């Protein structure tokens, strides 16, 4: 049960990263590598502020702002200075490495007995459901801390996804989506493609920074190396989601990215639960993801084959 709740919680926390990657990669067709740096940046800002005794929600908001700043920098490098998309992301990610070391002032900041958003949620849960450290759900023992983390991550993801959907339905959001699809058309309509790109990347990395802040609070530490490879997992989630729900409808693709992230962490957890040789962990993870990607296509093909006799 712990493992299940933990996988769901990390999946949901990292779905904020997936949503950020969704904006840069799907909406803007911008392969934005800043994510590796901005997730750590968010985690570092939140961790340092929390250790100083600031309010964890304010700290998370500050992490959001930090991420937005990082994303905007990438956008400016690309839009105003004409640096290649990939390279502008690489530059900001590289620079953030040093920035993160300065923010943390060492390589790793523990948050083991600090007040985090999760402990606040736990206290709220204790007030609602009594003080017991664990309770029973259909025969399984559930720790209050785990349940509170999951509930909080679920709430945060739903809020962010809802806000994102609402935003992309506004005039500004529609213009932003159009920028990614056809920048010549949108330029002809009098919208600044440059400003749209900068704003879009800022929003994208704000979500990624928030994801990092929550991850640090959930795991109990911020580490300067925690961002390594994260953009890849974000991309994987977005693409798994796309394979599952298609790419026609805005709301569905947003839900798809979240599902992709949760599914991905569940698959990793299953691989762990099998207790296989630790060296094989990544191989098995890759195989699982491959399976999740091809399954929809296989299903569609068998369905089409089954449907053919009727048309003949």
């Amino acid at each position, binding site marked *: 049960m*712990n*493992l299940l709740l*933990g996988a769901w919680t990390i999946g949901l926390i990292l779905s904020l990263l997936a949503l950020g990657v969704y904006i840069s990669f799907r909406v803007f067709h911008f392969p934005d590598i800043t994510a590796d740096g901005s997730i750590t940046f968010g985690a570092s800002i939140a961790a340092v502020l929390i250790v100083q005794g600031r309010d964890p929600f304010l700290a998370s908001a500050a992490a959001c702002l930090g991420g937005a700043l990082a994303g905007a920098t990438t956008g400016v490098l690309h839009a105003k200075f004409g640096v290649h998309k990939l390279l502008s992301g690489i530059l900001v990610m590289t620079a953030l490495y040093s920035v993160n070391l300065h923010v943390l002032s060492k*390589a*790793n900041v523990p948050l083991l007995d600090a007040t985090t958003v999760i402990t606040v949620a736990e206290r709220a849960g204790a007030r609602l459901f009594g003080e017991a450290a664990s309770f029973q759900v259909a025969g399984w023992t559930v720790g209050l801390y785990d349940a509170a983390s999951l509930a909080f991550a679920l709430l945060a993801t739903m809020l962010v996804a809802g806000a994102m959907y609402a935003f992309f339905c506004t005039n500004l959001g529609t213009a932003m989506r159009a920028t990614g699809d056809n920048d010549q058309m949108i330029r002809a309509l009098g919208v600044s493609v440059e400003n749209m790109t900068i704003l879009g990347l800022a929003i994208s990395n704000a979500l990624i920074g928030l994801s990092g802040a929550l991850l640090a609070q959930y795991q*109990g530490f911020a*580490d300067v190396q925690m961002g390594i490879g994260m953009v890849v997992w974000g991309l994987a989630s977005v693409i798994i989601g796309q394979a599952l729900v298609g790419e026609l409808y805005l709301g569905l693709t947003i839900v798809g990215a979240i599902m992709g992230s949760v599914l991905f962490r569940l698959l990793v957890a*299953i691989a762990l*639960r099998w207790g296989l040789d630790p060296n094989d*962990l990544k191989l098995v993870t890759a195989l699982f993801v491959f399976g999740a990607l091809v399954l929809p296509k296989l299903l569609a093909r068998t369905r089409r084959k089954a449907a053919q006799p009727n048309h003949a």
Partner: protein
Amino acid sequence: MWLVVKRLWLGLALILLASAGLLFSGAGPRQSGSARKWNIHVIQYNDVLDSNETKEGALAGLRESGLVEGRDYELHFSNAQGDMATVSALVDSAVTQNADLLLTFSTPTLQAAIRRGKGTPVVFAYVASGIAAGAGTSHTDHLPFVTGVDISVGYPQMMALVKEYFPRVRRLGTLHVPAETNMVYFLEQFQEAASKAGMEIEVVPVSTATDVPDAAQALVGKRIDAVMQMPGNLVASAFGSIARAATQAHLPVFAFQKAQVEQGAMVAITREYFDSGRLAGAQAARVIRGESPARIPMENFSSTYLVVNPEAARAAGITLPHALLRRAEQEAGAHRGNH
């Protein structure tokens, strides 16, 4: 609405399936009574030589305590392969499988075990400082379910040795990886020991293995009298290029890891990771025998021994003093006797 359901069903079905798979694969009921077998989960952060050596030491420590694998305890191994997001899941997975003891190697896994282990006893090793990692405020005043072994580097011994056998060495050079928690901590100690001995340190930062050859050239170009490399994961795997740059510049190379003596270090005051692990294994055995980790102080492993490589020195045009060689022989003999 129907369209939404139709589009989502596959994803939802897969998620439900995976969740159910995880839920129903929980371990059976925990054995009770004093004769129960302890489930020890060995959790590593990455696959590097020193971490593996420490782990082997811990397993040896368990065996030497008189406990028998299969009868008294069972071992389960996991390794996050350097992926920070997996570290928590490793601990969750261990807890789900009714782990009775978590044996963690490196700082991130220790922190995840404290946070996510639900009070399962934790014994850690391969950590530079348990206090810096958040396990306690002192070696005796620590979290009640955590104990372990942290390792310090033989800087004071090394400084004394340099003063005695290489009296002209004043300025030392080292590469530094600011991203490695251990190295940041080691650098503070290094600087303290050096300033006490009246020496200066030149530091060149690196962040990836590919930077190391260039950084090593930059380091030897800094008018230093010797290279004295701090231990760390990254520099351990790229030590050869550090030694090469120093040899070409005819500088002595001092190191703190035994493996580096084979890669061109001339003198090393080495920590024995294996033995530090053995100490942690002995602590784990005490926990299994019923002692509370709260009463077992965290230990600092500081014992070191001297290793020399006269050929490497000759390649750089340096002759190691005879007295130093004799001392190395004695310490190596004593060390072999320990094993």
